[in-house]
């Protein structure tokens, strides 16, 4: 018996199980009971250290496996907690919550209609600006620019994505808001129009870099074949490359839309925070509010039902972006499969 237990294999498994169970307990306590059990933590760390010293290979593999579940765990936690806190708002009166037109904190009436509409307007505006420019700059970078220029342009576009959104919002508020107000002779500062423009610029790098990857992924021999038939380069791109990359470009557009939809600070700083539908409905020069700016501007001061309603808004946002990114992922993986086969 004793020999069996001292057998390295079972000791390894025992230790591993012990540590894993302690880790699971530690995690469960933390999530469910809001306590961080230091003793369990000690057990986990010491057990891991022991495992590392004596059975490095299997300890490494187990740790790596746990690491690979981290992204999924976080995603699930986000979904669960937003759901727990936000679902009551949906439950009360889902149709009114999503389509009603009033957000009145003092009287505790909460509906997201105007904010959903605002998000749609702003995202639509941003997409109109970002989509054509993003795709055509991707074409330029991938196909028309010389190599040296390309090596400058790609990082420069990345940099565009790196400028913090709070800086975009600040510059937009200082320069764009009042400029638009003056030029179009509008009576208010916080219209949908100004953040749309800034969001267009912010969504552009996402579209460009993903679309550029998609265009670049099309095997060169396809285009070369067309060129050999005597067509111009543009004709080859238009008839061969772009159709092949179309699903990738589609994915890029979806990601860009997701980016614009979820962008927070720039919108919050530039929009007028009026929680009502614009009138007439498509007047992009009316002040308004989007889902993200609603959350950002009110969560700090909300209590009670307002928190639930804001969590509901967050949940809605999360779900929309989730669907968008899964869709784009599916499109992309189809594209990859096609070329792998071809």
């Amino acid at each position, binding site marked *: 018996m004793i020999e069996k237990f001292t057998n390295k294999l079972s000791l390894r498994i025992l230790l591993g199980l012990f540590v894993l169970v302690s880790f699971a307990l530690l995690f469960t306590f933390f999530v469910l009971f809001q306590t961080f059990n*230091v003793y369990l933590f000690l057990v986990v760390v010491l057990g891991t250290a022991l495992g590392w*010293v*004596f059975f490095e290979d299997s300890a490494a593999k187990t740790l790596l496996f746990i690491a690979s579940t981290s992204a999924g765990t976080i995603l699930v936690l986000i979904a669960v907690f937003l759901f727990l806190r936000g679902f009551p708002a949906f439950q009360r009166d889902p149709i009114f919550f999503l389509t009603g037109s009033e957000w009145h904190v003092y009287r505790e009436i909460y509906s997201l209609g105007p904010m959903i509409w605002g998000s749609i307007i702003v995202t639509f505006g941003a997409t109109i600006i970002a989509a054509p420019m993003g795709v055509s700059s991707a074409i330029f970078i991938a196909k028309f620019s010389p190599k040296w220029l390309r090596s400058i342009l790609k990082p420069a576009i990345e940099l565009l994505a790196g400028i913090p959104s709070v800086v975009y919002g600040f510059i937009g508020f200082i320069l764009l808001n009042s400029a638009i107000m003056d030029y179009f002779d509008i*009576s208010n*500062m916080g219209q949908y129009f100004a953040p749309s423009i800034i969001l267009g610029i912010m969504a552009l790098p996402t579209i460009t870099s993903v679309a550029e990857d998609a265009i670049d992924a099309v095997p060169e021999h396809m285009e070369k074949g067309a060129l050999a038939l005597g067509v111009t380069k543009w004709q080859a791109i238009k008839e061969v490359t772009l159709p092949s990359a179309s699903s990738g470009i589609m994915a890029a557009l979806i990601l860009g839309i997701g980016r614009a939809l979820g962008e927070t600070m720039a919108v919050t700083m530039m929009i007028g925070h*009026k929680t009502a539908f614009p009138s007439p409905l498509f007047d992009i020069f009316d002040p308004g509010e989007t889902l993200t700016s609603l959350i950002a*501007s*009110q969560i*700090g001061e909300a209590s009670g039902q307002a928190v639930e309603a804001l969590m509901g808004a967050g949940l809605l946002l999360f779900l929309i972006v989730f669907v968008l990114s899964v869709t784009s992922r599916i499109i992309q993986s189809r594209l990859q499969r096609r070329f792998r086969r071809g």
Partner: protein
Amino acid sequence: MSIKKLAGLSLVFMLVLSISSFSLFAQGQDVLRADGSSTVYPIASLAASYWNSNPPIADAEYWPASDYGIDTEKSLADYWASLYGLETFNVAVGLSHSGVGLNKVAEGKVDIGDSSAGAKFEFPEKTEEELSSYTAHIVGKDRQAFSVSKEVYEAGCTVLTKEEIVGIFKGEITNWKGVHSCDYDKEIQAIGRAVGSGTETMFRVNVFGSSEVSGLNGIDVRYGQNQMVQQALVKSSNGIGYPGIDFVSDDNPALEVIWEDGNTYSIEDQAWPLGRPLYMYTWEGTSKTEAAFLRMILSDFGQSVFVDGGTEYFMLSEKEQAEQLEKLPPIE
């Protein structure tokens, strides 16, 4: 097992031990936390800045104790803390809204809740009994201005009647031409504050009679803080807003109003109808740490430096000051 591994193992041991012992005893530093109204913030943050800097008695520019009849050799914070037999501590002031400050102080997340509206106005649904745990300390007085863009003021719109103000914020008057005192053909941009802020609450109470009023459809944009209201007024040529008096400048001047009693008031008048006290609330009495900080603000020194000197707000009268000092626990 190699020496290397042993060394590694012992290192890990030491790390774990140190980290766990620290996380066992790890707490935030010993600080007095305040949070809440952006209107009270200038007073609170200035006071906290003096407190944390703790200038010595030699630094008479910032700690002129003898000017206020205080006889001490101690530094600023040391002196006020010593009144309650305490060691010096730090003060951190957060910034949100009156409602938040009041909620946080009740939840025990902060020690002092700054509010520019009384608790009973912020929480009209709560009973007297529920509100009785709040201990109010009035630290200064504000007057809410009706401030307009410079262009509007220069076009002659310098006096508004109460009906006009109601009309503008209800959306019944949409052009400056609709105001009796001026002929300025421009649409009105009515700038509101975030709901839940004391400024918004007191505006509703003073102008409309209740914080639960509905139909304020004239408000075009809402900003979270006084500063943004001021920014928006300065950057526009058609705006009107109701910031605290600290946020009025030459570029967004304050209006005179003709109130319902028929009198014309200017913001300089004692009887300005939108006056309001500025509160620092504590929860269930006032602790010694809280009292030490509050006593500094309520003293002659605090009133003249933090309220009169540092901001545009108004000091408490001597009677009010005595009343407020009375509420604090006696010094040791």
